[in-house]
């Protein structure tokens, strides 16, 4: 009942909307796949699609690498461990809109504190146009997404690391395994199921990210940082073309569905080994 109410109903409403000619204030009529055909021939949609894959791919790789590294560090014993672990979670705890506004100021084209610091250190002589240059703007939002997502990876992987018995490491060490070999042959295989679940969640969240891009760039400059969600919002809400907006939102679905199915199959395979 709950699944039907909160998942199935909105989903089928979205499908219905995407197959109609609905505009704001006008329910429209059935038009079949016309909206999908239209967005498929839309160059901004192509950019959006590429951006979404690039953004998701790059951030996931970095979040996984940095999160794992951080988790391994936090798994060691040192003074103030609990405090450090709590602080590590801050980027994840702070509301995204709030932290993104702080980043927006740091990347501000005119008053960027990053530029100021680099200038004071003599590294740059002119301002870096962080949010006004298409590539730098994409890099900027990727950096922020990584900053926000690493704690989630770190803490979850840390929980996974703590379930691995130290005896396995000790046995491997006695057999002469070096630290890297112990990680690769003991830690990594045992951590794999947790890692896959974390990656799965992260990919879904990142693929459908909205807040960060909306606050930082609004999809600009010149549509260079639009993701599925921001472009769907611009069309559906900004211009009132609800059906097209719904079609763009739904365009995410097949990609996410494939990613999720592949990952779940892989998780099942890992678990049944």
């Amino acid at each position, binding site marked *: 009942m709950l699944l039907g109410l909160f998942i199935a109903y909105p989903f089928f409403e979205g499908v219905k909307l995407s197959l109609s*000619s609905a505009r704001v204030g006008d329910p429209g009529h059935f038009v079949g796949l016309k909206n999908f055909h239209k967005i498929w021939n839309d160059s901004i949609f192509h950019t959006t699609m590429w951006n979404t894959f690039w953004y998701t791919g790059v951030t996931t790789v970095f979040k996984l690498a940095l999160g794992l590294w951080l988790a391994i560090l936090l798994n060691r014993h040192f003074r103030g461990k609990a405090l450090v672990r709590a602080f590590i979670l801050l980027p994840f705890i702070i509301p995204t809109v709030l932290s993104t506004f702080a980043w927006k100021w740091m990347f501000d084209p005119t008053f960027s504190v990053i530029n100021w610091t680099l200038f004071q250190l003599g590294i740059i002589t002119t301002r870096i146009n962080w949010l006004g240059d298409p590539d730098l703007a994409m890099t900027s939002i990727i950096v922020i997404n990584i900053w926000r997502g690493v704690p989630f990876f770190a803490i979850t992987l840390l929980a996974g690391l703590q379930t691995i018995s130290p005896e396995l490491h000790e046995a491997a060490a006695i057999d002469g395994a070096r630290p890297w070999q112990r990680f690769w042959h003991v830690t990594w295989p045992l951590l794999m199921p947790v890692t896959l679940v974390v990656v799965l969640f992260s990919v879904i969240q990142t693929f459908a990210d909205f807040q960060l891009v909306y606050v930082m760039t609004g*999809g*600009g400059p*010149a549509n260079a940082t639009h993701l599925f969600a921001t472009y769907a919002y611009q069309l559906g809400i900004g211009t009132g073309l609800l059906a*097209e907006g719904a079609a763009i939102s739904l365009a995410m679905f097949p990609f996410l569905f494939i990613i999720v199915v592949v990952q779940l199959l892989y998780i099942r395979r890992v678990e049944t080994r």
Partner: protein
Amino acid sequence: MAKTKRRNVLKLAGTAAVASMGGMAGILATGRMPAFAQQRTVHWLKWVDFVPASDALLRREMLPEAEKALGIKINLETVNGNDLQPRVTAGIQSGAGPDLIMAFNNQTYLYANSVVDLTEIAESVAKQEGGMYKYARAVCSDGKMFMGMPWAVIGGMIAYRKSWFEEVGATSFPKTWVEYRDVAKKLKAKGRPIGQTLGHTFGDAPTFTYPYLWSWGGMEVDPAGKVILNSPATIESVKFMQGFWKDGCDEGGLAWDDTNNNRAFLSQTISATLNGASIYIETLRRPEQYKTEKGAPLNTDILHSPLPAGPAGQFGMHLLQSHMLMKYSKNQDPAKEFLKWIHAEKNFEKWFVSQKGFATPCTEKWEGHKVWSDDPVMAPFKVAAKLGQAPGTRRGNVPLRASSVWKTSAGWRSLSSCRRQCCSACSLPIPSSKA
């Protein structure tokens, strides 16, 4: 304290019971639901004013007065200008939301099916105040109905540093884009570029790009609603802009919203920017804070000018604000009463004066107001509403039956493809057609 006796309580209860029985009988006899005495409330959603004193005036003084005069409650809610459209869409789709919502420029056409006709109020105000400007009519009326009640025009003029322009030999503001580019090049070489907002935002970006395009002869759609943006004139304008941007502008402007250029100008990192009068008004408000490099008040070194002319002429487009009364509103009558009240001359004048020229009224009578003669620096804004043009219109003409364009599927297709070509960098979705 008086003692409450059991007998008194019983008496009161009995009286109430009789009264209620009689009431019930009355209700049953009429066959109607009882009309409960409800407080009539109008929910008004508008932008956060760039002149904070005006919002303060509304909240502190004007709305309490209106509440007293009309016997209604008014909830004023202010949001960032970029957040108005999502609220409109959410309201229309859910059938609930603010009663009166501020619209920018021709957004009114987007919501034409979902708003109440305000012709009676608009024409009445126009009649009393010497006529309404064509610009306001073009944006708010489709020829059949007023989709929004014109509120004011936020004039967009180039605010520039007089002394800095003089230092590079420009004793008056450049007349053409070519002259402007030459001056901009010299200014940028001195570390004082032109700053132009071209980010995804509602105000300064479209009020720059549309007139710029028109001044080169470019147009969005032809009278039949066909997109003709891809023209030699448009290409020329883009080519020139590339050079102008690189040679003379702060290239961070691609990421600016409507507030960035204000901050950049006030911190003296740019020498000129297309903006409302809010920069100048801010320097007047805090003369101690904003000073030139020589220590003089910054406001003494700011002048305003319209955008330069291109090969096809000189154009201006300004942010026209109107208020839409939503069809879903259950408070349409009190909302109309409120609109009439706030547009009454003596009431509107209070708000207008508090704007200090940042907003230009949509009717001709206000051209003679002393606000414009008090400060000559503000004089160029006086005619913003008079000379401004809606997207797709040409100088001196009224727009082609906008309704016929936008209410047809062809119109929407034009809108859609035009938006993809030219309007993706701004929040102005609907170009209308030329006369």
